[in-house]
């Protein structure tokens, strides 16, 4: 697009015999055109991302009534609270476990789907994407019913095997298990679709060459598929890690952080502290803690991607 505009600019300049040339020159420059074309997005990001980010930084330095600047004392206060460290731990457990399972399931299912021929594949792909396209707030409500301790389908089914009833959302271990389960159910299709696209981009002849070289199916995956998909895996993992880490709706709907705050993530705890307990500066402070943790993950994963970008 930009190229076309630039070309037109050049032609206009060549034929227009240098009248009103300074404005035309500025407009004709490639960088100017590029900037103008991205301006709407820059404004949008500024409005919806940068402004709230800086505003929350500002908020985090105020006292509870938001009348006085208190510096970093909100942060030091948080460090002393046991719940805060539990949230840090729980967020990490939740995000890492969920992402690992999403990636594993996505990878395995992507292989199966990849091997389904032609038209059938499209049907399966569509069906398997369903969890991802349903708004999570709605689908999580359905899960809430499934997890009901007395009347749910899960416990009813398990009762035939003499198991249960399991307090899905009432006990710390099971509550953590349940929110991870729902998150995996919701997020695995994203991995599936990304991995499927990556699988399709691996040339068949590499597998044929590997087959002739003597590789079995496992060696083909290890030596051909995985290295060829490394970048996609890294970027998908990072992306999912960020989204999972910042998850709000699933925990909010299923447990609201309970029992005894043991399933809180940063976002839900920030909501509880900031909105429900009316301590907005402290809530802002909690949510800001996601930034350094995610930044470290992003640096590690993306540094590897750029390093490898030169190989493939």
């Amino acid at each position, binding site marked *: 697009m930009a190229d076309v505009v630039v070309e037109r600019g050049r032609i206009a300049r060549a034929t227009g015999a240098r009248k009103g040339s300074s404005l035309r020159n500025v407009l004709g420059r490639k960088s100017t055109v590029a900037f103008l074309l991205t301006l709407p997005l820059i404004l949008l990001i500024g409005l919806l991302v940068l402004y709230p980010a800086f505003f929350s930084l500002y908020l985090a330095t105020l006292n509870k009534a938001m009348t006085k600047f208190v510096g970093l004392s909100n942060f030091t206060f948080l460090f002393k609270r046991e719940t805060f460290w539990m949230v840090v731990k729980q967020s990490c457990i939740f995000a890492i476990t969920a992402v690992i399972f999403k990636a594993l399931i996505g990878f395995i299912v992507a292989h199966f789907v990849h091997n389904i021929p032609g038209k059938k594949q499209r049907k399966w792909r569509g069906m398997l994407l369903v969890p991802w396209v349903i708004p999570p707030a709605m689908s999580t409500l359905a899960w809430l019913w499934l997890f009901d301790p007395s009347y749910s389908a899960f416990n009813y089914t398990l009762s035939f095997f003499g198991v249960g009833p399991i307090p899905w959302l009432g006990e710390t271990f099971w509550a953590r298990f349940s929110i991870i389960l729902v998150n995996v159910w919701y997020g695995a299709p994203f991995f599936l679709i990304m991995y499927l696209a990556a699988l399709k981009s691996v*040339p068949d*002849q*590499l597998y*044929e*060459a*590997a*087959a*002739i*070289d*003597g*590789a*079995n199916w496992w*060696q083909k995956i290890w*030596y*051909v598929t995985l*290295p*060829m998909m*490394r970048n996609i895996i890294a970027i998908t993992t990072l992306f999912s890690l960020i989204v999972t880490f910042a998850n709000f709706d699933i925990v909010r709907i299923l447990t609201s952080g309970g029992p005894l705050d043991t399933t809180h993530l940063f976002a839900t705890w920030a909501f509880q502290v900031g909105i429900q307990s009316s301590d907005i500066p402290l809530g802002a402070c909690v949510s800001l803690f996601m930034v350094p943790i995610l930044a470290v993950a992003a640096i590690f994963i993306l540094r590897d991607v750029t390093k490898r970008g*030169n*190989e*493939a």
Partner: protein
Amino acid sequence: MADVALRKVVKRYDDVEAVRGIDLDIADHEFIVLVGPSGCGKSTTLRMIAGLEDISDGDIMIGGDIVNDVPPKDRDIAMVFQNYALYPHMTVAENMSFGLRLKHYPKAEIKARVTEAARLLDITDLIDRKPKQLSGGQRQRVAMGRAIVRNPKVFLFDEPLSNLDAKLRVQMRIEIKKVHQKVRTTTVYVTHDQVEAMTLADRVVVMNKGCIEQIGTPNELYHKPATRFVAGFIGSPAMNFIPCRLEDVGGTLQLRLTDRIAFPLPPARAARYNALPRTEKLLLGIRPEHLTESHAHLAPGVETFDTVLDVTEPMGMETLVYFGLDGTPVCGRVDPNAGAKDGAPMRLAMDLNNMHLLNEETGVVL
């Protein structure tokens, strides 16, 4: 190293027969080229030998053992692909040694084999590079190196030079021939380029529509084609096919091309074609190099005729001339100093000692 044999091999895709029961015996050390237009089944045949395609019917034998159901990795073959199929995340050395590493060869032996193959292919300096940092020709060498280090029973080449530019193709063709002279591994090579086929092969297999048209040495195919397809496919520019008929004039057998042009056949040819019915619709097959400018001293069996040239193509060492005989386009090859000009009349000589006579309907060379 081993011989390869195909017995009535068939490949069916749903209701399409890609390969229709071919028989082929490839001797140990032999360099066989499968050649034909796209869709003739040559690549499918190669992939069946490799084990990358199942065979629908028949038997494939490598070294005397039937390998129909043996997976590629256990057939002890190596294959060079058209787009090289190098593993992009591995270095040249890792690419070449991959097969050996999977088979858990000792490290010292792997190193020795890779070094030796790299030396043979002149890629020693590139051994630590990734495929992305190599040119097309270098990648092709690495792909060959990967095949050589395995020291397999059979080399399979699937149009290995099609992705290279013309100059490099000629160069790599010579390289491949040299490598084969050194390692002497039985080789099956697929190409659609008849020049590659002629220059590389001990024997050429010409395929068309899933069948073998003819098997023979490059010279046999060139001088004694069995069918119109082979006659037209081998040789560039292609052989001319001119409608003609036989007639008896005063006790000699004549070949009539047009109302104006008829030649008495040389005695050997006359004896060969005498039994043919005079009414049969025939085609004269004559290669462009047997249609030259006229000389003062013509050998027996060389007949002259006058024509008007449509187009001339000076090639440097020769000039190609194009003209029509009763609407049939014909190509000849004359000396660049013979004075051939676009639209000018010219006297040409046809060497009937090298003619072919074909049945127009069946395409069989008589």
